[in-house]
């Protein structure tokens, strides 16, 4: 039985996955300069401070780009082709890799999207649907 390649939860990323378990998509925010980002980092890439907090995102954003896999060397995803992977920018400014829960013919750049948290193999994953 092949297994989904699961995220490795570390002290750095634990608040992110915990937030999703609680139904909330979070981003990191710098207490020094207000910069907002994902994925988790130890320092703010803008002002380099380590004074960072986690904050709830609106879960709303827009579609930057997407691809559709027709082939995968990973056994789990080889069974899921064709499937999409997308880049979404949240309204607050953070970017993330995700899947869009829509047929590929409905996709276009800049379309508004909204988070939909789905359970899989014990993880709560932030996917997006068209808003």
């Amino acid at each position, binding site marked *: 039985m092949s297994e989904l390649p699961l*995220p490795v939860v570390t002290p750095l990323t634990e608040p992110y996955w915990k937030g999703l378990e609680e139904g909330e998509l979070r981003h990191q925010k710098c207490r020094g300069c207000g910069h907002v980002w994902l994925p988790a980092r130890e320092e703010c890439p803008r002002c380099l401070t380590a004074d960072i907090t986690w904050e709830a995102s609106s879960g709303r954003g827009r579609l930057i780009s997407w691809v559709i896999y027709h082939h995968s060397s990973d056994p789990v995803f080889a069974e899921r082709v064709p499937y999409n992977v997308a880049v979404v920018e949240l309204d607050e400014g953070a970017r993330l890799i995700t899947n869009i829960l829509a047929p590929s013919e409905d996709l276009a750049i800049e379309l508004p999207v909204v988070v939909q948290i789905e359970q899989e193999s014990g993880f709560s994953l932030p996917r997006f649907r068209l808003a």
Partner: protein
Amino acid sequence: MRGTAVIAGIGQTAQGKMPGRTTTSLNVEACRKALDDAGIEKSMVDGLFVKYPTSEHRSMYAQTMAEALGIQPRIGGVWDQGGAAPSSMISFAAMAIEQGQCEVALVTIADNPRTGTRQAYERGWGDDAVFGWFGTPAGYAMVARRHMEQYGTKHEQLGAVARACRRHGANNPDAQLRRPLTAEAYEASSFVVDPLRRDDCCLISDGGAAVVVMSAERARQLGVGAPVPILGFGQGQTSWEVAQRPDLTSTAAAVSARTAFAMAGLAPKDIDVAQLYDCFTITVILTLEDYGFCAKGQGGPFVEDGRIEIGGDLPINTSGGLLSESGMPGMQLVTEAVRQIRGTSTNQVAGATTSLVSNQGGIMHTHSTLILGSS
């Protein structure tokens, strides 16, 4: 330092499937051929610049190579910039020579992903693998989609890049893939990661290539047969991961090219022939734009109507590039640029006096540019 350094010799191994050949062995063969081509002894070499092999992770690799070559260089090391490394290393070698840190440098690369491991090209991207985010081609596909949506770039235009490289490779007896590509065959080629088809993706190849760099003056003293002057070079680093890149369709290739053109005192219109890194067809379209051969967004129309084929305004990848000659990360573009100035290419551009190379690595993370010419 325009024209003060030259490429004095080039060497290249066979490209394709070479079971049992290590990257060290491929590097040594490429270096031996480059030294023979320059007509010099290895005892003259006091600089050694080596690309980190993508297919074989190991530390202190430049020392492994120096031992295998039986030399004790004064200066050099390993460059980890993926496909940008060849032109970057040639630039560093030229600067080291200019500053008296060495006199004769070997610059060499070799990889064996075809019979070794392709893992570097197929692995999942950290925690994002849970979404199915795997592999290098998908990163380029993400950029290609954005470009197609933003500027109306068409599949057929990506196909025109593949067809140009395949046409040129068909005429190169040393190319790994010598079958030309028709528009119909391109359209029928299956998607790997939509919007990229099989024919949009470069070959996977074992192989190596090397060049000898020295000052123009030293080349004269040694009676080197066909030295090719380095007129300009530049580098630039985009650095953002694809998902984090504020603008997916612009890269620091623009910075790299601007630096090289300024050093050479040339503009895009002055270039007779170009070797543009074509790991994927979209890379060529972005490079044409970022280098200023056309406006941003106009790379698609630019590659139509045979403009980038032999006989066109700007013939590119005249030995076949990564799509047809070899998937080796970038030095084959340098050796072909040298052949164009020497007048010895199998797709020779008549009277070429300026020859440009674009190298880049990662998913358009790193960039380097080289402009060669008959000074």
